[in-house]
């Protein structure tokens, strides 16, 4: 993916126009050497604009980056964290949900169990992965791996990039509510540390089903919300064109959620977003995980459990008369 040129987003249009101008001038440079100064000036301008653009993103811009079709997905991280990583399949009860990828990763100092949602890259992949929306069987596959990790004392790393659970008939019949609830319940009782990273979209209960962790990290441009901004806009504003407002109102960006005290760390992305450099993104996340594990693995099993319970016990905003 890194060898493909990043596809520009809507809000990146001015930047792209400037880049095109520069390219046009560069093509003429051999014939008109006097253009060199202009090019340099434009380059400077471009860099300035780029920095200013990415340091003043609207919440909706973050959402767009988080949903960028070239955004690195779970497999992209697992492969880069450990080129020999071993994928494990299936819920053992009838399904191997491709929207939930699970396996064993050697991070160097730590061996871990990884669990991540997967959106799919090609159209066929996307369809198979149901655009990153796991089935109940996907959450149960994740749970199987959580239990595996606990049995062998392996820390768990989860990657969250999902619009949420799938609003389908079979998913309801197979009790996806229960599948999510049981994961929340069981994750809170584990005796091995869990680190979750929201790398793209953290959508609702479907995200939380692999997100109850001792430490929750978010990539700089990722988002995390109780409902999709589209859903929020349509319910609260009764208007489909109020998505930007919904994004702002819900405070769903990494920076905002960190300020609210709900997550532990924001992991920086390459300028322009994680899809501009998969290797750097993988290295950043790996570094952040190892840093967290350096502390978490010093705790006893009982303390790890107490820690995760305490973490979520504290979250809430209310007034007591």
């Amino acid at each position, binding site marked *: 993916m890194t060898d493909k040129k990043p596809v520009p987003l809507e809000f990146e249009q001015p930047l792209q126009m400037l880049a095109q101008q520069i390219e046009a001038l560069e093509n003429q440079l051999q014939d008109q050497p006097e253009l060199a100064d202009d090019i340099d000036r434009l380059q400077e301008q471009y860099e300035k604009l780029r920095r200013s653009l990415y340091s003043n993103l609207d919440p909706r811009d973050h959402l767009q980056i988080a949903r960028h079709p070239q955004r690195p997905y779970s497999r992209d991280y697992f492969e880069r964290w450990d080129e020999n990583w071993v994928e494990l399949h299936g819920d053992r009860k009838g399904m191997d949900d491709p929207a939930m990828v699970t396996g064993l990763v050697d991070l160097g100092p730590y061996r871990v169990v990884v669990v991540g949602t997967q959106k799919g890259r090609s159209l066929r992949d996307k369809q198979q992965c149901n655009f990153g929306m796991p089935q109940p069987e996907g959450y149960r596959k994740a749970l199987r791996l959580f239990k595996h990790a606990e049995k062998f004392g392996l820390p768990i790393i989860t990657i969250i990039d999902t619009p949420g659970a799938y609003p389908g008939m079979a998913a309801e019949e197979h009790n996806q509510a229960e599948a999510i609830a049981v994961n929340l319940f069981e994750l809170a009782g584990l005796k091995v540390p869990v680190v979750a990273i929201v790398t793209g979209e953290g959508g609702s209960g479907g995200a939380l089903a692999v997100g109850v962790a001792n430490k929750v990290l978010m990539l700089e441009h990722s988002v995390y919300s109780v409902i999709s901004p589209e859903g929020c806009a349509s319910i609260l504003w009764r208007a489909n064109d109020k998505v930007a407002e919904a994004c702002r109102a819900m405070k769903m960006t990494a920076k905002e959620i960190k300020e609210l005290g709900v997550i532990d760390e924001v992991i920086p992305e390459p300028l322009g977003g994680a899809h501009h450099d998969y290797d750097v993104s993988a290295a950043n996340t790996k570094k952040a995980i190892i840093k967290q594990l350096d502390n978490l693995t010093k705790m006893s099993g009982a303390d790890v459990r107490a820690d995760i319970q305490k973490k979520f016990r504290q979250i*809430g905003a209310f007034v007591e008369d």
Partner: protein
Amino acid sequence: MDLKEWFANRKKKPPVEEVKLPLATDEYCALWKQCFQCRELLYTSVLIQNQHVCPKCQYHFRIGAWERIQQLADTGTFKEFDAGLVSSDPLNFQDTDTYVNRQKEASRKSGLKEAVITGECEIEGERSCVGAMDFGHFGGSMGSVVGEKIVRLTEFALEHRLPLILVSSSGGARMQEGIFSLMQLAKTSSALKDLSDAGLMYISILSEPTYGGVTASFAMLGDIIIAEPGARIGFAGRRVIEQTIRQKLPADFQTAEYLLKHGQVDMVVARTDLKMKLAYLIKFHAGPGVADLNSEAPTNPVGERESDRKPVTR
């Protein structure tokens, strides 16, 4: 009329479209009320007498948290917990109106401060922790206060080794508290894990309607799960699913009876039988608990009735 007949009759009727709960205050004013299902005009006092179940067709009207508690708790035994907990507005949330205003409006309509009432009481003499949600307050949505009150109730049950009963009725997580609302799913589930590992009993009762974040957390984590007849229960809403899969869903999709058939609830119990059934289940499970199982020799043989235990009756 028994449940089967009632349900058979119900099927003959055209499916009831989106049922709106009348305001609790209005309800008490009105002398008459029309059954949403059989269209019979009912005396409000008779309806209340019958626990808001239509005497003719057994339709279960939505009821508020206080009605629920009154129906389940032995008279005069309920002690409310955390009545003073109220929402703050952590996000300064505003859509077409502010969250602060919407909260005021919700309380004006419901007469409640929040969408759940918690406390302890006796149920046929069995001391229990009970929480009841009220769909009439802010659509029964779960924000920080609902989460906190349920967790405190769970912690009380754990500390005093009491059974926990939660009656759900909710549209899901409260959007206006954003990520805080989502985290209440984890917070409540996490507290229930502690309760469960201590060998204590949690009975979840699902009433019309129970959806979204509430279903995907504490509502589906009961040791025993009971649904009320006709209650609609699910994660995603019917309309969202129909839009997604582009086809009509069966009329009984997501009803209590549908869930029973699909193995998601232990039983469907009529409201008029609920209290006795709960009391029976509590008594049945009041035993030595898991702690004794790990000791070298249990003081009470497992499963054996203590001689001084009250007889189990329904």
